[in-house]
């Protein structure tokens, strides 16, 4: 009897410890309601190398009358769990959709935190393949940089694919999803909330942070006029502050692309090497962006070998 009591007491202690440790892990992420029913957690501007903590992208959710859609989930399972707690602080409605705006690890690695809700995982029709092709590299790189903070983070493949456009009804609230041709990546998708006229641009729009390239920048330039034609009041970029002055934000991004492409083309024409071009192309844009020196060099490293074939 005494033994049983001791066992019970031990059990209670263990439960408490477990309870508190999950509590501590799942402290809700701070979110801002940028439009009625539209909640955003703004990531910080840091690199994906040393000092990366998995919380650099803008992630959040939209609440309808009947259900909730989560849009991007952060760079680790823990960030996803904290986003889920943030949803639960706002509403008890079921989470029926988890939408990934593209394949990058800072946007998708919190997905698994929502598996318990059995949502549809929604993505660009190329997202599943892109996840599979990048899986090994992402696991290795993220584990190297994040170490234990990456524990439990895994890729969740989409269960609902968007070929061109798709509407999701959250109950008196319709989200319009649009899959784009290769631009920031080959898996870019935007989400437009028709009720508040808020556009989740994913990484097709960078504000403050230097736009990172991993797809087809020449095509991205062609998409900007189409993105600007969307009747949005407010745009949530993939990185940076959500804004009503989003037309100018696209203009700034377009300007950077035109400058970097122009400078690289001029270098190639002069017979200059990639190495020396990396030291100066688009250098005049330095003060307009955050993390410029590393991201700009990487962009040149990616673009130069492509533009050599023009």
């Amino acid at each position, binding site marked *: 009897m005494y033994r049983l009591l001791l066992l019970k007491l031990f059990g209670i202690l263990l439960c408490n410890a477990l309870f*508190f440790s999950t509590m*501590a892990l799942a402290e809700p992420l701070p979110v801002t309601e940028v439009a009625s029913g539209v909640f955003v957690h703004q990531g910080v501007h840091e690199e994906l190398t*040393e000092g990366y903590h998995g919380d650099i992208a803008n992630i959040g959710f939209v609440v309808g009358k009947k259900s909730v859609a989560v849009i991007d989930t952060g760079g680790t399972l823990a960030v996803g769990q904290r986003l889920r707690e943030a949803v639960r602080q706002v509403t008890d409605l079921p989470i029926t959709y988890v939408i990934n705006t593209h394949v990058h690890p800072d946007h998708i690695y919190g997905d698994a935190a929502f598996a318990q809700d059995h949502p549809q995982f929604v993505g660009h029709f190329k997202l599943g393949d*892109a996840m599979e*092709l990048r899986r090994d590299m992402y696991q290795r790189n993220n584990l*190297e940089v994040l170490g*234990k903070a990456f524990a439990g983070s895994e890729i969740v493949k989409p269960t609902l694919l968007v070929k061109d456009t798709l509407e999701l009804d959250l109950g008196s609230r319709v989200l319009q999803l649009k899959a784009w041709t290769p631009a920031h990546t080959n898996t870019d998708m935007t989400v437009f909330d028709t009720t508040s006229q808020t556009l989740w641009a994913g990484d097709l729009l960078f504000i403050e942070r230097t736009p990172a390239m991993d797809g087809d920048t020449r095509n991205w330039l062609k998409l900007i006029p189409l993105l600007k034609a969307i009747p949005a009041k407010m745009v949530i970029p993939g990185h940076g502050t959500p804004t009503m002055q989003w037309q100018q934000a696209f203009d700034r991004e377009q300007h950077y692309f035109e400058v970097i492409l122009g400078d690289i083309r001029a270098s190639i024409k002069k017979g200059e*090497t*990639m190495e020396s071009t990396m030291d100066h192309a688009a250098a005049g844009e330095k003060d307009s962006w955050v993390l410029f020196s590393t991201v700009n060099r990487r962009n040149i490293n990616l673009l130069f*070998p492509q533009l050599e074939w023009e």
Partner: protein
Amino acid sequence: MKRLFIVVSLLACCFSSVYAFAEASPDVWPVLKKSFFGDKVIEVSDVMRLEGPRRAESGAQVPITLSIDKPDTYKNVYLFVDANPIPLAAVYHFTALNGKAQLSTRIRMQTDSYIHAVGETADGKLFLAEIAIRAAGGCGGMVDGDDAEIRAAAGKIKLNVEAPVKFGAANPVTFLIKHPMFTGLQRDLASGGYKPAFFISKVSFNYNSKPVMQADFGVAISEDPYMRFFYLPDAPGKLEVTALDNEGKTFTHEVEVNN
């Protein structure tokens, strides 16, 4: 409980910083050296140098420059990326007709690694140059696009000589060949396995039919292989290149060198 959590997070931070400072390992080279060159002595050379970024911006296209003070010092120069799954990136064969033994290329790097260049003299002596580069993800990376289209486009060559040319002196030439350089380590989602290796294996350059430069490539050479090197033209003529892929296909191109 909160305090405990803070302690745990601090510990986690310490842990992750250990991971974050993983760097090029010096442990691979002794093994590579032994397997390629046996017990031969390799001296550190002061006539050969390697240059590259301390941290590569992209593991897929890392720019590297190899310089040797005299073009005919070494019969062969072996280039290794220690930490790549297939470390031997290229073997270069310079001649006196290079005029200047300086060569730039772009390589793939899987992770942080030492780069080694081993120069071999005509009488079999070996000399070494090395640098360390931090990098990630250049070997198993994604391949997007249609295989048939990629194969159809393969083999297109660009050969650019600098004008005006200086006869009797070393002039730079830039060579580019369109080719996916499949490593054999890239996933093939259609078959569930890996895409077979498909790469340019050899390039030879002649000036007025005389050999200037030859190179053997491995899959550590980046997609659309790039080489910038020097040639020594004595008079107007023709610079020709022949490239061979591992499936036996040859691609040729030539450029007239006038004034």
